[in-house]
């Protein structure tokens, strides 16, 4: 069973519909035992990092999510990617899950670059980039904070003069800053590839 972790960080409807479009039904779960029992774990998230980490702690999900990221196919999306890093500058600075090294920072204010970044941006493949990203694809982003380029970076994008990790991958542990569930055919191809990893 593929599960979608619900920790009160945004709306899961679009993610469910995207998997449904691939013929896969996903179960929405919010307790640690069901994350532990899952075959595959999707870890979405929209909103603020402080509240997201607080919810993960208060719902007792921190260890289950950490274990899932190491043990089974795992896909973090958007804020669900950012909180995998050690720390974020958001909300005055918040310690996160520490599965990826580095600090998530806010885009600088530069003339001509609105924050949040909203829209379709290029993802350039690097490292362990999945085949669905090879050659470079466009995906849909909505975010004000960005993850640094790290050893696990699999896709790089550029905004407001910053090169950031739009995707990371280490084996079956995937994460993306963009929304594959809202990225048309490119997004569905990426989800399909993750389902077979």
């Amino acid at each position, binding site marked *: 069973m593929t599960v979608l972790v619900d920790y009160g960080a945004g*709306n899961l*409807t679009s993610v469910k*519909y995207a998997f449904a479009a691939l013929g896969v039904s996903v179960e929405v779960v919010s307790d640690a035992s069901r994350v532990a029992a899952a075959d595959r774990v999707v870890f979405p998230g929209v909103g603020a990092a402080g509240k997201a980490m607080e919810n993960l702690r208060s719902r007792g999900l921190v260890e289950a999510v950490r274990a899932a990221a190491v043990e089974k196919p795992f896909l973090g999306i958007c804020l669900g990617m950012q909180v995998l890093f050690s720390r974020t500058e958001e909300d005055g600075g918040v310690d996160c899950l520490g599965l990826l090294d580095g600090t998530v920072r806010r885009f600088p204010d530069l003339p001509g670059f609105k924050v949040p970044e909203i829209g379709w941006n290029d993802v350039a493949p690097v490292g362990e980039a999945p085949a669905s990203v090879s050659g470079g694809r*466009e995906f849909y982003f909505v975010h004000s904070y960005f993850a640094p380029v790290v050893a696990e970076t699999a896709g790089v994008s550029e905004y407001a003069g910053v090169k950031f990790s739009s995707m990371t991958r280490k084996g079956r542990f995937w994460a993306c800053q963009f*929304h594959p569930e809202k*990225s*048309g055919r490119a997004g569905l191809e990426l989800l399909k590839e993750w389902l077979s990893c």
Partner: protein
Amino acid sequence: MLKKRVIPCLDVRAGRVTKGVKFKNNVDLGDPVEMAVGYSDGGADELVFYDITASAEHRPIDIGMVSAVAAAVRIPFAVGGGVSSVADMERVILAGAEKVSVNSLAVRRPEIISEGAEIFGRQCIVLGMDPVKSGRTPSGYEITTCGFREFTGMDAVEWAKRAAGLGAGEIVVNSVDADGTRGGFELVVTRLVAEAVDVPVVASGGAGRPEHLVAAFNDGLADAAIVAGMVHSGEYTIADIKREMAAAGVPTRMDW
């Protein structure tokens, strides 16, 4: 590089897509879900639905239709019109829309913007505004409400700044003067707003030819542009528009 977005707008009345000029003479154009899929498959970057009402008598938003669109398309979409409370916003977002657009409601009750942004995140809250050329306000553009019927005395640029400060994540500038004319966007007010706020600005009203979008991006400094009649009529496809944008050097998503 971030792409400039092309956004078809679907006006839905009583379950059907319609198109009118300056809110009058509405013509039936088709089924909203079928049209949404067609535009999504044809390269639209996003969609916007206005006035999704269950009947012609302005009953609440047709949530069933929002769900049907969310299930059928894999690109983001916004819903506007008929939203009268945070509870309405929540129903629209939980049904699968990325964004909710408020317009007259926000003029009457600006706190709706901050309340929505607080709960759902500012990226979910779009301010729609209908400015008209006017000698009565400093920028020369005055906000109208209720389908251009009421003048508010509010300055368009000041209102945009205030709404962005309250938490609007995006601002749609729909020119009353240009709406439905297919003579091109009102570039002056689009640019005034785009220069005044630090959130993305969407040009709306007046798109008739692909070069109008190029102008909205290059001269109006818009981040996205709404199209309606020019594509609903079949005169142009989204691909036609994007080819012209690409040829003019506007960053455009060409792979879909």
